[in-house]
């Protein structure tokens, strides 16, 4: 609550109820009437922007964040409904529009919805409940302290009477809204919705094929567009055979878009607008464009690898952490080893290709999209079209997968521009090839490690040199500095930093003309593979059990500063011990035949602690089968919706396995080689493990999110299992580039 724009008490109260922060002038009038009640009808009770209660007993709760498959459209209303103390079956969930004045943050990213909304959304429900209790107390003329609530009614147990909320709406609408900061919340033992398995509120619409996704949007008079961009990122159109394209059946318009230079925005290309999408796409087969490919057309994955090898011979250009004296400790260690690890660029490949529908009328834009950051998208569109943000209305459609791709909004800018040029409502849909070849890729990375073990097999020294892609930027003090490009940095506190007495971590960068972005568990999804595989090498070199080696490492009292949000060795040790127990590691890992092995890995990302064990079998011929996965997670005190929580974890694990097994984006001549699911494979039913056990370690910390943190341990746990099965250490991904056969 940071608002200081008014001293009026009622205003401040209602301000805080709307979401704990800013409220702008346009809403003051409506809020001042009826004691802050935004009431569309005399008999409705609308205590705040999130709740509408009607006399038929229906409670409509607004879901404010983009739904991308992470379950937030069900989870956030569960928080409100539980504190409101209604039955879940009374609740109807409505997706909000983009309205950051009303709803504040509306984004999907960083597994952030749970930690950001755990208290604010509960307070929204609790405040409305308090108003209903006050209304009942006034109706009966009894003190509020004698009343309780349950399942959508206020109860006066002493006098054996109750009133359904639906009969209290008129009076509740006259009750001043309480202060959100002090409104009383339930004790966790009293939760009746939080902690129960609730299916997604959109399941019926999904299984009956209702048009709920962005790609399903229909606007009267709508045309369909494709947009051909230069295969080298940021290349410009020199010329195109537009007349021939315009002559194709169904084509209404074809035109060049000059575009700008920012890879996150509108780039140069050719738009084809037609009566249906297939007509536009078919006309595109005739399109011939002469491109100015620009300065990055010579880039290649092979060239990046050569440069990484060169950089590895020099000290890191950007030292990040230095504890003790790693060089001296390595020199005096009883045993030393070195290794280099590599992982490739990756694409997101959300199953719903990027698309957006836009309608530009009289200088104003209405847009339907599945952005994960619709407010950023609105800003980009405003800048691209040169119109004010206030002239843009954004509808938030359900998204057929995000995985971080839709954190950037290039497709919104394209659709808006094309719709304005076309003078008609336009639905832009990318082909799968557009999607794979114009992504914001998980950056490739190289890790050069050196480690030293003492005579007892303890890790006493470690050096890590991370090489990826970077850029120069100007610091606030005016000096030029270097940093990783988007999603290409490594945290200064990367584990086992603080847990090894002599430890150094540094980075070096090379320039890049390929757009990078955040892929589910960004940074972590690659770093975990390198570090947790390397730790496994150290354990085996030390002659230690890899599980016990990790537990011992986590049991060292950490050194140095630990900012509030950072790593807890204790919590991590908790999940490692839990997964060891659930997988029966001590007995089972020693009893497997050659060709079958168990591997363990753990990782902390997005505030979540996860440890995972994979059992894998490799045939003599090298065919890989993932037999089973055990997962132990600690995301705090409460699993809000266990059904979705398990679904997210199982999906994250398989996602991580897919990245490890078969996914790779290769750059040649400045462009992406892969283009569709035939060369960028997603794991299929026959390839996934038949069982993924999910176990929770409940701790006293505030609940945190589950969209991402279960992914990073999966690739290294698999690779460590392959080592246990075959003796082959995997130091680069994907596995499809390796011969796993053994004899």
């Amino acid at each position, binding site marked *: 609550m940071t608002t200081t724009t008014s001293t009026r008490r009622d205003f401040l109260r209602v301000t805080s109820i709307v979401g704990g922060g800013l409220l702008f002038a346009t809403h003051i009038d409506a809020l001042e009437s009826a004691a802050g009640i935004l009431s569309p009808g005399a008999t409705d009770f609308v205590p705040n922007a999130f709740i509408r209660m009607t006399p038929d007993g229906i409670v409509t709760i607004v879901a404010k964040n983009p739904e*991308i*498959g992470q*379950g937030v459209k069900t989870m956030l209303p569960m928080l409100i409904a539980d504190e409101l103390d209604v039955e879940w079956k009374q609740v109807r969930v409505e997706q909000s529009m983009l309205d950051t004045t009303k709803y504040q943050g509306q984004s999907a990213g960083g597994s952030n919805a749970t930690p950001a909304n755990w208290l604010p959304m509960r307070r929204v429900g609790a405040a409305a409940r308090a108003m209903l209790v006050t209304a009942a107390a006034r109706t009966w003329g009894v003190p509020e302290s004698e009343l309780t609530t349950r399942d959508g009614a206020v109860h006066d147990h002493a006098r054996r009477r109750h009133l359904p909320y639906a009969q209290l709406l008129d009076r509740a609408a006259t009750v001043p809204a309480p202060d959100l900061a002090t409104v009383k919340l339930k004790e966790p033992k009293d939760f009746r919705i939080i902690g*129960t*398995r*609730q*299916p*997604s509120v*959109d*399941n*019926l619409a*999904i*299984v*009956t*094929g*209702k*048009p*709920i996704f962005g*790609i*399903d949007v*229909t606007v009267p008079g709508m045309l369909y567009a494709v947009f051909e961009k230069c295969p080298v990122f940021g290349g410009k159109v020199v010329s195109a055979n537009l007349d021939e394209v315009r002559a194709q*059946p169904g084509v209404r318009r074809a035109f060049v878009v000059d575009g700008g230079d920012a890879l996150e925005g509108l780039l140069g290309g050719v738009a084809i607008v037609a009566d*249906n*999408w*297939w007509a536009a*796409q078919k006309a595109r087969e005739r399109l011939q464009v002469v491109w100015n490919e620009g300065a990055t057309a010579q880039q290649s994955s092979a060239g990046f690898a050569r440069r990484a090898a060169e950089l590895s011979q020099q000290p890191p250009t950007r030292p990040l952490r230095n504890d003790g004296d790693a060089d001296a400790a390595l020199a005096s260690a009883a045993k030393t080893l070195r290794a280099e690890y590599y992982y490739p660029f990756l694409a997101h490949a*959300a*199953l*719903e*290709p990027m698309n957006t529908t836009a309608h530009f009328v009289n200088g104003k834009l209405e847009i339907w999209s599945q952005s994960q950051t619709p407010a950023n998208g609105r800003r980009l569109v405003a800048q691209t079209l040169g119109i004010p943000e206030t002239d843009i209305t954004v509808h938030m459609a*359900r*998204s*057929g*997968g*995000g995985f971080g791709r839709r954190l950037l909004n290039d497709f919104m800018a394209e659709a808006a521009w094309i719709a304005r040029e076309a003078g008609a409502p336009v639905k832009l849909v990318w082909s*799968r090839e557009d999607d794979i070849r114009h992504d914001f890729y998980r950056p490739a990375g190289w890790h050069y490690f050196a480690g030293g073990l003492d005579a007892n097999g303890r890790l006493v020294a470690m050096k890590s040199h991370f090489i990826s892609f970077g850029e120069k930027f100007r610091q606030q003090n005016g000096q030029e500095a270097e940093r990783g490009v988007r999603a290409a940095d490594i945290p200064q506190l990367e584990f086992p930093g603080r847990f090894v007495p002599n430890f150094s971590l540094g980075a070096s960068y090379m320039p890049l003309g390929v757009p990078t972005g955040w892929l589910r568990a960004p940074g972590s999804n690659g770093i975990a593979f390198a570090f947790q595989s390397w730790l496994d090498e150290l354990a085996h070199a030390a002659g230690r059990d890899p599980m016990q080696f990790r537990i011992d490492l986590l049991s060292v009292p950490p050194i140095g500063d630990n900012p509030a949000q950072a790593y807890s060795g204790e919590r991590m040790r908790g999940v490692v011990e839990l997964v060891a127990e659930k997988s029966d590691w001590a007995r089972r890992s020693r009893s497997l035949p050659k060709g079958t092995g168990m591997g363990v890995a753990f990782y902390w990302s997005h505030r979540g602690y996860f440890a995972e064990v994979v059992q894998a079998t490799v045939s003599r011929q090298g065919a890989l089968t993932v037999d089973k996965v055990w997962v132990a997670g600690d995301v705090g005190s409460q699993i809000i919706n266990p*059904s*979705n929580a*398990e*679904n*997210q974890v*199982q*999906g994250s*694990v*398989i*996602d991580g396995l*897919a990245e490890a097994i078969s996914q790779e984006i290769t750059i040649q001549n400045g462009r992406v080689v892969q283009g*569709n*699911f*035939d060369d960028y494979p*997603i*794991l*299929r*039913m*026959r390839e*996934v493990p*038949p*069982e*993924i056990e999910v*176990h929770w370690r409940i701790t006293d910390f505030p609940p945190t999110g589950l969209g991402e943190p279960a992914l990073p341990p999966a690739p290294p746990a698999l690779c460590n299992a392959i080592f246990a099965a075959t003796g082959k250490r995997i130091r680069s991904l994907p596995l499809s580039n390796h011969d796993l056969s053994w004899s």
Partner: protein
Amino acid sequence: MITFKVNGETKTVDVAPDMPLLWVLRDVLDLKGTKFGCGIAQCGACTVHVNGTPSRSCRRAVSTVANAEVRTVEGLSPDGTHALQKAWQALDVPQCGYCQAGQLMSAAALLERNPKPSVAQIDTAMNGNICRCATYLRIREAIQVAAGVTTQAGAATPGGREE
């Protein structure tokens, strides 16, 4: 002009004969349940039944379904009461949900020709359908529930579920 039946209703469309059935369903007949995922019959999101056989509508020219019976996810049941739709909801299968129409149509075709499939038969029948969110364990379990070959929560959901 090409005439065929969609979910029991006769439709006549005036489109190019090589237009894929997917885009006829979506952009001409306004049946948006069938989804576009890859355009090369790799992902299965566009799966429909043609005369009872599952078919990738993104690679199927509309001319090849003249006089045929096409069934889409909207034709499974409009109210979600088909056994597979019920199982999908009860087990909370979807994450993003985008692939699920295709998954349901592949599963429905399987159960129509093999009402009690083994796990291996399920896996084979469903291998052409990608789920990018990787809800495969629940898809497999939901097919078993719909087929009545299991009545218990399987390994996909340890700890059981509250019905």
